[in-house]
């Protein structure tokens, strides 16, 4: 048998031989035993963690774009900003329960408990700061770290845009320019950014696993869509309000509308996924890239719910199915809508009323309910 060694193989063999020489030198008997042990531990850790067989995700966390505008929304609109911290919990616990309770009857009961906890306690008294989602969903985070990272990164963009709009020191032109800059920065993290091309709704609604979650858990699904309505809807009063008081009143009314959606659930909840262009036309006209990113983000949220809930996706395929969908949502070259199709999509899906209603021109109606101590978690 003849083995042909290419120059690439030859380079690899030389590198391997070099590493073996270094290793032999480092582990020679004259080096103290504990030092050899330490070196061996370091090398073993590196070898295990970088082995392709283990299919390891990297941590890959990246800091957000700095600026004086950061955290302004939390300071100026704490009642709205803190709700997003509870939303983080809601997303994380949903995926954790769907993945760790494969028996659907048990999952229904578990999610019903979480729904009560969320709507009667956590949303009523939300945490001051963001919730680390890997604390709430450790099993899911280990399963699909990349998905968690892509969501986190898009949520940072969401939050920074609120902060920019909430910063009364910035003029309108400065706000628009800054939003484009933070969007550029978001996109510069290519490994974790959703594409700015609006992806086809078929990716969410016409796959073999599609729509399982919304059929099986209509109330929790409605809660997620209500989250997404508020997440994009808050931009509209911040743009439309002509004075600081007007903006505050508009945000207050949008938050009140969110609480209204939770009344008699799921009757008042969105019946289809809220589309950014439909709920926030002013924001979409100014920042179409960010608007498309948020639609892609929200579609991907629903897709992961379906993959985790669907019995048609075997448990040992769930990670692969999620990662395939993530790759699709980073690809701007296939399964995309034109700008015109995207702008019309909301009407084709039933219009603004099916998506939770408009985010401006609202009168405050409902206040958050009092917390129900019986549903409180320890922490």
């Amino acid at each position: 048998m003849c083995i042909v060694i290419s120059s690439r193989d030859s380079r690899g063999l030389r590198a391997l031989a070099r590493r073996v020489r270094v290793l032999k030198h480092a582990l020679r008997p004259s080096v103290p035993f504990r030092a050899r042990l330490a070196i061996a531990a370091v090398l073993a850790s590196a070898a295990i963690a970088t082995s392709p067989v283990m299919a390891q995700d990297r941590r890959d966390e990246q800091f957000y774009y700095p600026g004086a505008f950061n955290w302004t929304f939390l300071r100026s609109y704490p009642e709205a900003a803190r709700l997003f911290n509870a939303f983080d919990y809601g997303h994380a616990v949903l995926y954790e329960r769907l993945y760790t309770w494969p028996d659907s009857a048990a999952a229904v009961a578990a999610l019903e408990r979480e729904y009560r906890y969320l709507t009667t306690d956590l949303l009523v008294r939300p945490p001051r700061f963001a919730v680390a989602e890997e604390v709430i969903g450790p099993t899911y985070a280990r399963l699909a770290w990349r998905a968690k990272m892509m969501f986190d990164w898009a949520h940072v963009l969401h939050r920074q845009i609120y902060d920019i709009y909430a910063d009364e020191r910035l003029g309108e032109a400065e706000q628009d320019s800054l939003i484009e800059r933070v969007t550029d920065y978001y996109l510069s993290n290519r490994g974790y950014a959703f594409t700015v091309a609006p992806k086809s709704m078929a990716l969410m609604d016409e796959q073999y696993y599609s729509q399982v979650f919304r059929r099986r858990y209509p109330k929790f699904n409605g809660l997620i869509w209500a989250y997404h309505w508020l997440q994009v809807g808050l931009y509209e009063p911040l743009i439309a309000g002509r004075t600081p008081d007007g903006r505050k009143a508009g945000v207050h009314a949008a938050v009140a509308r969110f609480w209204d959606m939770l009344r008699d659930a799921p009757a008042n909840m969105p019946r289809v996924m809220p589309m950014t262009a439909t709920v926030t036309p002013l924001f979409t006209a100014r920042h179409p890239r960010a608007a498309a990113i948020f639609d892609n983000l929200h579609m991907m949220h629903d897709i992961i719910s379906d993959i985790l809930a669907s019995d048609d996706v075997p448990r040992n395929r769930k990670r692969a199915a999620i990662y395939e969908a993530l790759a699709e949502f980073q690809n701007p070259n296939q399964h995309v809508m034109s700008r015109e199709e995207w702008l019309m999509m909301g009407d084709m899906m039933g219009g603004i009323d099916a998506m939770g209603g408009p985010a401006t021109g609202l009168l405050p109606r409902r206040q958050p309910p009092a917390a129900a101590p019986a549903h409180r978690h320890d922490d």
Partner: protein
Amino acid sequence: MPFLWRAALAAAVLCTAASPRGAQAQIDYRNLDDDRPTHVEDAYPLERYAFELITPYRVVRGRAGQTVHAFIPEIEYGVLRNAQIGVKLPVAGLDEGGATTWGLSGARLFALYNLNTESRILPALSVRSDLMLPVGSHGGDATRGSVKVLATRSFGRSRLHLNAEYGFGDGATALVEGTDRWWYGAAVDRTLFRRSTLVVAEVYALREADGTPVEVNASVGVRYQWTPTVVLDLGVARGLRSDLGPDFEFTFGLSRAFALPWLMPRGPRVRTQGRF
């Protein structure tokens, strides 16, 4: 004003004043840095592009009655994806019999590289290397180095951290932030997510130099997200073996993460195939 309060005030002022204007920090009460407040740290590095300025104070009462005060300002930077570098410049005051001698206690340069995030099978794993330079009157007389392996595994809202370090070189080491011949330890933390608080406890063993007895120490601490930009930590420690390790140790610190705009990538403006 008591010394402890003056120290706290100085740390707070330094942490706030040293942060560049316009920069903000991130919520990081779960980032368990070494000595903040436990010896054991987690296996995760700082985020890419982030700086973290840490201004801690520590007081240690030894078994022989001596007291050591230490301010250990530290700056870390997420220099690459999953990698951080940093420098510590500890200032120590040794109080023996009423007279306190102050001086720089060496300079510590370090780098940490995270190999992977936690997966279904593996814990998160990192390697860290430190270089201690004998700078200042309390800085020892030899350049020393160390290498450390770190692992973190979560169990629901709790995490287990394991650290093991081996120190290289001989000669007198620094009074604080010195190099031990070896040490290893384990810590368990628990996240109280509604309060943005981390509580942590640890046990670790160390041998300061070849031939010295093995210390076994324990500590407990807490990290609290004070504002969106500042984390407060507190910890107490004690030696578990008689006549070895600290009689009592108390530490507190403030840390603030921020970034500098001119070090951030802008990224090309991405257009959507001419559609937008």
